[in-house]
């Protein structure tokens, strides 16, 4: 996952596309608000149609890459009234923008595939 660079905002978003399915699943899970790691793990495993399965170590590496890319951030324990025993993660503004861009890209790809003869 490319690190943040100072450049045109569109370029900054484009360099994160296409997102990996697991990264997309994490970002989508955070779209509704801060979540702890275990809930993100469950979301990823549930939404990845069974063909990608992550564990704590795998998830950690993914989350670290997304943090380094500026797409998500980790909150201090106990912030927003969350469970003090668990650290929560939030989507950054950049992350939200990238999520929307990836969702649009996927929607366009699906529309294109649906328009082809024999694809229904």
């Amino acid at each position: 996952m490319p690190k943040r660079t100072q450049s045109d905002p569109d370029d900054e978003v484009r360099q994160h596309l296409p997102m990996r399915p697991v990264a997309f699943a994490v970002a989508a899970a955070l779209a509704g608000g801060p979540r702890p790691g275990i809930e993100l793990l469950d979301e990823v495993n549930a939404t990845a149609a069974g063909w990608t399965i992550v564990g704590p170590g795998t998830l950690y590496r993914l989350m670290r890459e997304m943090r380094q890319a500026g797409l998500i951030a980790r909150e201090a324990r106990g912030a927003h009234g969350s469970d003090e025993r668990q650290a929560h993660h939030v989507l950054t503004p950049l992350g939200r923008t990238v999520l929307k861009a990836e969702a649009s890209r996927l929607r366009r790809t699906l529309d294109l595939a649906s328009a082809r003869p024999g694809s229904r």
Partner: protein
Amino acid sequence: MSADQLYRRLLVLLPRPVRQEAEAELLDVFRPLHARAVRRGAHGLVLFWIRVLVDLAAAAAAERLPSFTRATSPHRPRRSLSMRMTQLLETVLTDLRVTARRLSNTPGWTLLASGTLALGVAASLVGGVLMRDVVLDPLPFPEAGRLVRLIEISHGGRRAWWPSWPNAREWRDEARVFDVVAIAGTPRTSPVMVGGEGVRASVGGAGAELFGLLGLRPVAGRLFVADEHRAGGPPVAVVSEAFWRGALRSRPLSGTLVTIRDISYEAVGVLPAGFKFLDQSGAWTDGPDVWTPLEARTAFGGRRSHGDYHVIARLREGITLDHARGEMNLLAATLARRHGEATNAEAVGVTPLHDVVVRSAREPLQLLLYAGFAVLLVACLNLSAAILSQGLTRARELHIRGALGATRSRLAGHLLTGSVVLAVPGTLLGFLLAAAALRAIKAFAAGAWPRLDEAVLDWRATGMALAVAAVTAAAAALLPALLLSASAGRDRLRARGQTGSGEPRMWPVFVGAQVALTVLLVAASGLLVVSFLRASRVDLGYDPRHVVVVDVALPMSDYGAPERRQAYYRSALERLRALPGVTGAGLTSTLPHEPSAATASTQIDIADAKSVMSGYRLVDEDYFATVGIPLHAASARVLGSGGAIVDDRLVQQLWDGASPLGARIRNSFDPKPIDVAGVAGTVREWNEAEGTTTGAVYVHYSRQPIASMHLVIRHQPGIAASVAGSARAALHALDPRVPLRIEPFAPRVAEALRAQRLLLLVASGFGVTALLLAASGVYTMITFVVARRMREAAIRLALGAPPAELRRRVLRQGLSPAAAGSGVGLVVAYLGGPALRAHLFQVEPADPAVLVTAALVILGAALIASLPSARRSSRVDPALALREE
């Protein structure tokens, strides 16, 4: 240890900076996942930990090997290594579950496949464990790799001798290439008095360095101290664990005395059980029953030409064997010049002790190892064919999977994973079979090979069994997996039973390969059988049948005077000859089945006469008739007049076959020259080539009535046990304090063949196993082919084909690959036969009768395996068969 603590420990797989940063976050996810797994029970917990380990391993690999995480293409979503590994794990677990369920639904096939695998695992495990524990494992001494044995070499390296005391002592004191040199007296059987009772025991002398060099620790008491090794030191002894439990009845050591040759030694220590050492003949066997300090009481002779000691040494660090040999040869030359007297030590033989110990077992066990792997290969081919046949019955299922999107690699992986499941029952069963086989080998042939009792199925063997089973199962499934996945990948769903559907052309190759290997094993077994039969029938020069042997060891306390010993033997012989059923009794110092024992230099009593090594035998007049040694010239009565009888071999060596009667000879064991008055037949060991047997000189025992002799009793057939009992009673009545060992003679002679017998039995076991596997392979193939072609057979019958023709077609299908395999096997057996030559007696490795018989046996088995299917194919009801299709 809690789950949290365990997980924290496992995080050590990650690099330290990552671990420190990630620990809290990882635990946040780990804890709830663990709680869920606990609620699912033991099964869930096991799967959970497996996933955690794989996840951590993948993450650690990704952290430490970042190159693996690079994207292969910027436009394709990539899966990291860790994700691929976890997905692979899930796939494998699913396949394992499905396969386990399917195997439990087909118990017959599962049992057959597991049994096939088990036979291969057992054969290779037996061969592997024997090779490892008997030959490859180091000796159980500290720094065993540096231990060597020293011997004297003469006649340009052609003769070898046990070292003499002067040479051994000077090697110990002057050699610079060893850091320790230990000397031991060669063990001797002696009468030992314990609490007034006499027992026969082997007694050895331990030099001051011996026990320390071998790293021995007593299991009770102590070992010798330095003061006990000096000349005239206090009489103490150390006993073996078996002697302590047996003769000493595990009594407390304090105050326990053992009397040897009128000297009472206090037993101060007990050696560990299982301690082995070189015996009188240099074989590695149970150590002496009693050890005394060598230097304390030994009257060391100054002769450098007569050796009776074992010398073991440890090479200094960094000294190679060649360097040591060179140095010792220089030392030998220096000593010879210094002393200027006759010595056998023209050079010094330096041999790794490990090689000395395992020499006799190395080659036969290598052959058994190869045979074991050959059986494994036959089992692997057999299993491969069975997996293929089962896969063909699942052709429709595999086609459906392919149509639903399963890739060829996915299908192949599914079939491979499934076959590895067989490794579990195959390992268990194979392990049990191997354990039973090893137990039988050790019980049947203890002592046939050195260290045989050390062969055990330990955790390493368990791991070996599992690995062999898994690899064999995977290898067996590989080709069927590739073939079946290739055919399933084609976009067709054929109707069942169509001609030619799914029968791979490789099938006859499977059968042919099995048969070729089986021909090799059966031919080798056949050669060993013939060799053993010929060896056991060889004319040894005497007749051990219907003879009982009494080993006598007269205690010197009562029989110190030669006249007393002679009187005992005379009385003993009189009593034995009077026993019912006894047809003759005699006396000898050395039994005839050990012609190489008690040899000494013999020469004609003239100046510059050639000397040869020959046996020196103290016998009575009736000995020859009792054991069946023929006399050619004169009668045995000449012995009583002071004459000697020489054997044919010695006549050839000293007189070139001319008559020796009237000649005078000298022997190193006899202080006076002896007149030759008769000639006897030569006795031999079974594997001695013509012209290599040691000759012998026989003199009357009254010349030197020694304390240890053998009484030989010939009796009527079938009464050995009662004669042995009567003999014991008669000799006990003569003197109850004389320790005796009484047993039939023929089994002792047969002991010489025990290594041959063992090799034959194990190799034959492998041969029979391979034969059964190959026959079952033929049966499986033919049965399946006939079942698949039932429709074709029904059509042929309906069109009027004679049933006999159908039977012939099936038999041809079964016998053709078997015949081809036999041909290949015969060629390989012919070319590879020389490897067996060292183990064969009077039979050539390429003996055509044996090879052809082996091939015919296998073809016969293939024919028998094909008959049921041949009969079935000619009896099919055409209407029924066609209706079913």
